């Protein structure tokens, strides 16, 4: 028979030992105690200060800040705990959804977006449709990692080489002053070495970004529906001697999870379908390579899905290999809606 109060609890499958009521009361008492301690201490501090007629001081400000933080933490914790009493996860979820759908000054507070009301847990289509195409109806937004790599390389290069310059000047001054600091000098050498590598990496990223040129993908309709066919247009700029250019339709699953104190994101590619492939061709200066092809969304495909910690993303991925450049990959997300009505297999959706 379970004891009423246990010092240690165990988790047995879905069940935990110990009383949840005692746990709730204990937690609420802790936060209540914190709130009371803060209130009493703050009141005592302010009344004693008023009685002494002293002016404002740093000590008083610090005391007020510390006791006020106790009041906020205790009060907030107590309200949160009380709100959870006798309330299931499902009920809280429903209340949160209702709160999110309250309209304030004509703006709906998030929750499931306008499209999401019709298709819960499916991403909003606005992001995908905000750029018109030149050849087909929509130009897809790019979410390639290249620009992030370039940004990270720029920031790292600036910070590291800024620090290197300071250390080099300090070391140089010790030599010029006739009392060389050999420890600092030796320490600076690998530091500068990393700085030189950072500059090389930054230039490589920059030249890749500027040299390979932009990639654009356009599509005849959005959102996509399983079982239907769509036209796709791909364009590649830059003076390049291409070994190969591929376009794939891929589906990635994403899972965000807490591991210790880290938040980790795992991505798994679960579907990949070659849409277009071309080898050995040149793109002339000021020229552009253009190609049109078609994709068929598999009839049994899962739709795009997005929740707080899990997602299913579909995208068109361009992979290129150009002579003198490392291989590159650029992603263009697409939105797939669930199939709500029967579609004739392979029927066309044209712009």
């Amino acid at each position, binding site marked *: 028979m379970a004891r009423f109060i246990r010092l240690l609890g165990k988790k047995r499958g879905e069940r935990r030992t110990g009383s*949840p009521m005692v746990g709730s009361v204990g937690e609420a008492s802790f936060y209540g105690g914190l709130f009371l301690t803060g209130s009493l201490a703050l009141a005592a501090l302010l009344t004693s200060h008023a009685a002494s007629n002293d002016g404002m001081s740093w000590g008083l400000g610090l005391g007020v800040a510390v006791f006020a933080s106790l009041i906020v933490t205790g009060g907030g914790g107590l309200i949160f705990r009380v709100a959870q009493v006798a309330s*299931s*996860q499902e009920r809280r979820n429903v209340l949160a959804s209702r709160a999110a759908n309250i309209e304030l000054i004509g703006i709906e507070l998030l929750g499931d977006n306008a499209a999401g009301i019709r298709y819960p847990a499916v991403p909003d289509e606005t992001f995908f449709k905000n750029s018109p195409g030149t050849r087909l109806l929509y130009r897809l937004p790019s979410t390639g990692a290249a620009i992030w790599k370039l940004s990270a390389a720029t920031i790292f290069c600036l910070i590291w080489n800024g620090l290197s310059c300071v250390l080099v000047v300090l070391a140089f001054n010790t030599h010029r002053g006739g009392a060389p600091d050999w420890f600092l000098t030796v320490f600076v050498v690998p530091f500068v070495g990393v700085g030189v590598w950072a500059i090389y990496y930054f230039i490589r990223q920059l030249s890749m970004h500027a040299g390979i040129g932009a990639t654009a993908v356009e599509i005849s309709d959005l959102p996509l529906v399983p079982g239907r066919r769509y036209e796709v247009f791909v364009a590649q700029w830059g003076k390049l001697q291409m070994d190969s250019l591929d376009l794939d339709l*891929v589906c990635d699953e994403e*899972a965000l999870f*807490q591991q210790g104190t880290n938040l*980790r*994101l795992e991505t798994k590619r679960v579907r*990949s379908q070659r849409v277009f492939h071309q080898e050995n061709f040149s793109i002339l200066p000021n020229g552009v390579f253009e190609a049109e092809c078609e994709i068929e969304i598999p009839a049994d495909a899962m739709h795009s*899905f997005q929740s707080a910690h899990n997602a299913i993303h579909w995208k068109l991925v361009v992979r290129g290999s150009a002579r003198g450049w490392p291989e590159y990959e650029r992603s263009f997300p697409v939105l797939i809606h669930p199939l709500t009505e029967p579609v004739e297999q392979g029927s066309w959706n044209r712009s």
Partner: protein
Amino acid sequence: MEPLISIRLHHPKPIFQPGNILRCEYQVDAVELQQLTAIEASVLWRTEGKGDEDMGVHFFERRTPHEAPGNDLRQAFFFETSLPPSPLSYEGMIVRICWCARVRVFLRRGREVFFDKTFRLGAVRAAKFAASPASVLSS
């Protein structure tokens, strides 16, 4: 002794399409009348797999003794709801989406128990491993 929770879906197979009507009957048994403080019935989806669990509640109702005839929550209750177009049930590699009808029983002293009756929504095929087997981990 925990109460017995039974859930019955009025459908020949636990497979539904978006827009279908889900009819469900549930009953709590093997518990004293005074022990029951509330019953919640919901139709929800939740994720399973590598990521932290997410859930979305499509239908929810809560019953307390004073709302039930004779203040007895042990009788059979019935509800029906039209199923939404998404998210569809999905068996992926690291993400799974499961639909269920859930009945949660609140007992005296803050105890609660629940039971799920799972069903499928839609006809999405389980993810077949098609391309690169590599898993990409980033912090």
